[in-house]
């Protein structure tokens, strides 16, 4: 009798397989993830694969200054003779670390605030959303400039400044999703069944926001890296001699256009990683859009 009622006669094609097929057929998603994987691998394995690992530190090699890209120095050398390729690899580490820490703080905070504001409404909504409005009115870069000017310029202070404003986007996003979900029957059912507000927020509502958060966070990686690079370019982020992509672009700019590789190649590296995360985010969004239509 159970089997007859169950009526599952067709073999199930698992969701994971279906998602994989859709994902792997989407050129945007595939290229994006390929780039991200390459960058991640480069960053993680930098100490092992970098040709001149000691060039990360305060090393000078005046005889090898300003050398163009060659078989010996793949990206050429900078004004004090350091291998640019090595520094780019290690620069990726710093960029990704910055983004991971910033987003690791901003996303949970922003999502939680959005959930609370969206579900409870009333005073919670008013306080949180007006705070969000105020924070959104401040341009992140200007804020970062202000913070690092007051405190001393350093990577940590740069991360603080960006994180302090970044959560607002996620709050806005999660708030609007939660507001729609709040009236769904499964949320009402959870209420009548006696679920605690904590359960409703994090076990019922949050999973339904997961795809939006994932897409936004992927895109955010690219943006945060760009902002971090901009701060370093202005001299307010990572301090020399640490290899940072933004700093490298700034230093190399003095030697354009003759010694183009010192500025453009680190710049291309920034472009590469930002592009990768953007494509990945877009691909994920395409994937989830179809899924939500189901």
């Amino acid at each position, binding site marked *: 009798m159970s089997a007859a009622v169950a*009526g599952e006669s067709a073999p199930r094609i698992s969701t994971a397989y279906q998602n994989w097929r859709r994902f792997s057929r989407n050129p945007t998603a595939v290229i994006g993830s390929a780039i991200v994987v390459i960058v991640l691998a480069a960053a993680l394995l930098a100490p092992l694969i970098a040709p001149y690992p000691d060039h990360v530190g305060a090393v000078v090699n005046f005889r090898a200054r300003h050398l163009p890209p060659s078989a010996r120095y793949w990206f050429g050398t900078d004004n004090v003779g350091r291998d640019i390729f090595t520094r780019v690899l290690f620069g990726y580490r710093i960029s990704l670390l910055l983004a991971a820490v910033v987003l690791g703080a901003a996303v949970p905070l922003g999502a939680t605030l959005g959930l609370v504001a969206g579900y409870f409404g009333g005073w919670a909504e008013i306080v949180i959303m007006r705070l969000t409005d105020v924070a959104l009115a401040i341009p992140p870069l200007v804020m970062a400039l202000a913070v690092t000017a007051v405190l001393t310029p350093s990577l940590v202070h740069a991360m603080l400044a960006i994180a302090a404003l970044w959560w607002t986007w996620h709050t806005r996003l999660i708030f609007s999703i939660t507001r729609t979900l709040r009236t769904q029957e499964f949320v009402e059912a959870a209420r009548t069944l006696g679920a605690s507000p904590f359960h409703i927020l994090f076990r019922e509502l949050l999973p339904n926001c997961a795809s939006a958060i994932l897409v936004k966070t992927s895109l955010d990686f690219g943006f945060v890296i760009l902002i971090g690079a901009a701060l370093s370019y202005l001299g307010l982020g990572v301090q020399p001699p640490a290899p940072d992509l933004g700093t490298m672009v700034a230093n190399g700019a003095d030697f354009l256009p003759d010694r183009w590789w010192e500025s453009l190649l680190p710049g291309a590296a920034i472009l590469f990683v930002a592009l990768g995360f953007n494509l990945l985010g877009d691909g994920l969004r395409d994937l989830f859009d179809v899924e939500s239509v189901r």
Partner: protein
Amino acid sequence: MTADPLLSVRSLSVDFWSYGRRSQVLRDVSLDVPAHRHVALVGESGCGKSVTMRAIMGILAAPPARIASGAILFDGRDLLRLSAREREALRGTAMAMVFQDPMTSLNPVFTIGDQMGAILRYADRRLGRARSRRARLARVHEVLTQVRMPDPERIARSFPIMLSGGMRQRVLIAMALLSEPRLLIADEPGAALDVTTQAQILKLLRDLVDDRGLALLMITHNLGVVREAADDVYVMYAGSVVEHGATAELFARPRHPYTRALLDCVPKLSGGATFRGIDGSLPDYSAPPPGCRFAPRCPLAISACSRPPEARRVSADHYAACWRLEDAA
């Protein structure tokens, strides 16, 4: 039915291809919709009535669906042999569709008059006809009167949100009537409406069929609506027509075991329902049973049912596809 019916679906079979597997979603479906008749296509979810409707209108998603065989004759021409452009020319003009959900089928940011006017504009362009804006508006008012809207001018100026469900459904019918179609396909008309409003809509459709000679094909899952409104009925199960005939005759003397089981499931106003349901479930269309698709669930199934049954005559206007018609009496 002496003259050739306006719409004649002949042995239509449609497959769906997904992840390399073929699902035989429609098998040998035949039905006729003559002018001046209200024909109902009834079945439960998954029986293929929507696929049939889409195939007739030409809006079947071409991959993954594929017409395997059969013909759809409209006014003598096989729609499946026409080019996309010729098909497009017919759609919305000679054959029109009334959609299911009046709440979501209308664009909320345009007035009724704007939406109907736009439809007229496109139809005119396709037919190479030129009409002034005022003439279009006059036609809109005219059609709104045909669907018994009080105060058509005010309705044309209104936004969908200002109208009730019943009025919106009438607007959908009016939109279908704009180009004077000869065939109307109505998808679950009134399903989203109250019983009292639904009765009014069905009466309107009836009058349109009688007074204007329309051929009306109604797709529904509601047997009561079929009995009260339709002249002829086709009962579908798992992609095939299992029984068809004149409504009064078929409901009075249902012969196919599925039709009988289905009618048994409908609670009666007279009370005494047993709520047994039908054991089992729909077959897997990618590995369907050979022969009669209802056999696995049929209390009368025998070994002969592994051969596909043909539609056998029960009486002058009543046919059922079952090998055991005599025993089902």
